[in-house]
């Protein structure tokens, strides 16, 4: 990160690097800030730090400064509950917390970013690609307690090694910069010497506002984010400007959403990225179709592919993956997300896929499968049929515990235009017809109508509802 920032600051010192709700900064200003922060970290002897900061300008300075100092930053959700944060910081042994928040207290020392920025420079600190540049990234944790993956900026930087300067691009930061996908956007923007447009909060309506007012040209976001952004645009009758690049990741992209995006932004290049906090960026699909082309999977005739399907599950080989989880000593991807790798460097992903014709179609996460009386139900195919309805803006399929069958399939539905005024019984009938040809156990038995569905890190939360 520090090397990319230095490169951009050298070639385009006065280019606007980041625009946030708090202001903007050029590449030279970011680099200067990072150098001061590095000096502050070094003088305080800080080698590991938690970062709780909403503003992407501060985040960029802190991450790059930590890289320069060789310290390991770990970002937390900026609006995380203070008590929950204290527990998680203790679990990850974070004894220094860099934040502007006043309510964070615990078994750690709070360091204000302004105080780091005010430090005089340390001329002995220079970017050095031979030295470790650690980074810890907590998983989104849509289920269970988030884990933390140990990365190195030098390894992550390989994924943007071929990125050419595209200084006219303006990328919307729709992910939190604490998410792996957010880090990827930061890297890509720095590598392309472009401008990051980073509103906070980062809800779809905030993203839409940024697209409409900040001359955004490129957007990377989850399918759930896109679905709500487009629904918001429709309800506001907003005239969306053309985009150059649209990237979807973090979840499977339904076909109807891809079609809607293509119709709304006909000039945009659309990519679907398969990546995870643990394995890094693995592959991308650029043909605009859902799923992965079967002929791009690993085979004897395609031995360089890093993706294969085995027994209905996606396996991957990581080229820029994590070093290990926090607390582990492994240094080279010894732990797959499911803890199961084979001798060829392949790891299980927990993503279930089905070969349909010439595509490997995502069916959901292994831990999202709903067991209805012994029948395994995958939420995504059900969700896809429902979200394809014009009367439905968004849907969430999940398992609801039931004494008689173990679970039933439940659905939360956001009607187009909101619950108020929606033809609820009409939508129920449409949903029933849309899933009529699915096995009976797959059909939603409990349908509720809501104004918003629950998400985490921009992803829809599926799986079993807590009892």
């Amino acid at each position, binding site marked *: 990160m520090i090397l990319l920032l230095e490169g951009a600051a050298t070639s385009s010192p006065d280019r606007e690097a980041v625009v946030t709700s708090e202001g903007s900064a050029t590449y030279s200003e970011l680099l200067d800030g990072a150098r001061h922060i590095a000096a502050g970290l070094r003088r305080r002897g800080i080698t590991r730090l938690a970062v709780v900061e909403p503003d992407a300008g501060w985040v960029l300075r802190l991450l790059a400064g930590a890289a320069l100092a060789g310290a390991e930053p770990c970002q937390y959700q900026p609006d995380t509950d203070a008590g929950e944060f204290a527990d998680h910081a203790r679990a990850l042994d974070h004894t220094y917390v860099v934040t502007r928040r006043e309510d964070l207290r615990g078994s750690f020392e709070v360091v204000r970013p302004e105080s780091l920025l005010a430090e005089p420079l340390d001329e002995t600190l220079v970017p050095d690609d031979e030295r470790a540049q650690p980074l810890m990234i907590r998983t989104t944790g849509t289920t269970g307690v988030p884990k933390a993956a140990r990365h190195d900026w030098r390894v992550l930087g390989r994924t943007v090694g071929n990125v050419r300067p595209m200084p006219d691009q303006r990328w919307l930061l729709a992910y939190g910069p604490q998410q792996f996908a957010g880090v990827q956007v930061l890297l890509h923007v720095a590598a392309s010497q472009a401008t990051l447009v980073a509103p906070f909060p980062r809800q779809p309506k905030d993203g839409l506002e940024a697209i409409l007012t900040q001359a955004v040209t490129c957007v990377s976001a989850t399918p759930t984010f896109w679905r709500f952004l487009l629904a918001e645009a429709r309800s506001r009758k907003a005239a969306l400007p053309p985009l150059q690049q649209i990237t979807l990741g973090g979840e499977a992209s339904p076909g109807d959403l891809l079609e809607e995006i293509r119709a709304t932004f006909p000039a945009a290049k659309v990519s679907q990225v398969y990546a995870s906090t643990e394995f890094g960026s693995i592959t991308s699909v650029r043909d605009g179709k859902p799923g992965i082309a079967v002929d791009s999977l690993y085979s004897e005739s395609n031995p360089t592919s890093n993706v294969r399907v085995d027994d209905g599950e996606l396996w991957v080989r990581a080229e820029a993956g994590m070093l290990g989880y926090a607390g582990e000593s492994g240094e080279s991807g010894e732990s797959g997300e499911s803890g199961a790798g084979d001798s060829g460097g392949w790891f299980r992903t927990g993503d279930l896929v089905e070969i349909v014709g010439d595509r490997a179609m995502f069916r959901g996460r292994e831990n999202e499968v709903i067991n209805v*009386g012994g029948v395994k139900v995958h939420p995504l195919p059900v969700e896809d049929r429902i979200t394809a309805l014009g009367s439905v803006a968004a849907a969430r399929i999940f398992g609801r515990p*039931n*004494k*008689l069958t173990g679970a*039933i399939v439940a659905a939360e539905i956001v009607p187009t235009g909101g619950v108020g005024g929606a033809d609820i019984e009409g939508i129920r009938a449409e949903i*029933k017809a849309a899933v009529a040809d699915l096995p*009976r156990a797959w059909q939603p*038995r*409990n349908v509720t109508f809501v104004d918003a569905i629950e998400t985490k890190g921009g992803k829809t939360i599926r799986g079993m509802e807590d009892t």
Partner: protein
Amino acid sequence: MATDQDKARAVISDFLKRTDKGIDGWGDNTGLWGDGLELDSLEAAELSALLEDEFGSDPFSAGGDLPESVGDVLAFYTGAST
């Protein structure tokens, strides 16, 4: 003023409409299974979820024997009225 039993009848009525069971003239003595409403396990699970949503509990999940008739379901919701 609707009693809980009246509300339970309304839930059952809505459920039968939504599931297109096509059963008319049901009453308290109508059985839930076999020759009555002919519920299968998925339909019973659906009805139990609807009753739980309305009342916070349901006779299918309460433990003990499963209800056998509409009257058994109504009997589970005795007493309080609104």
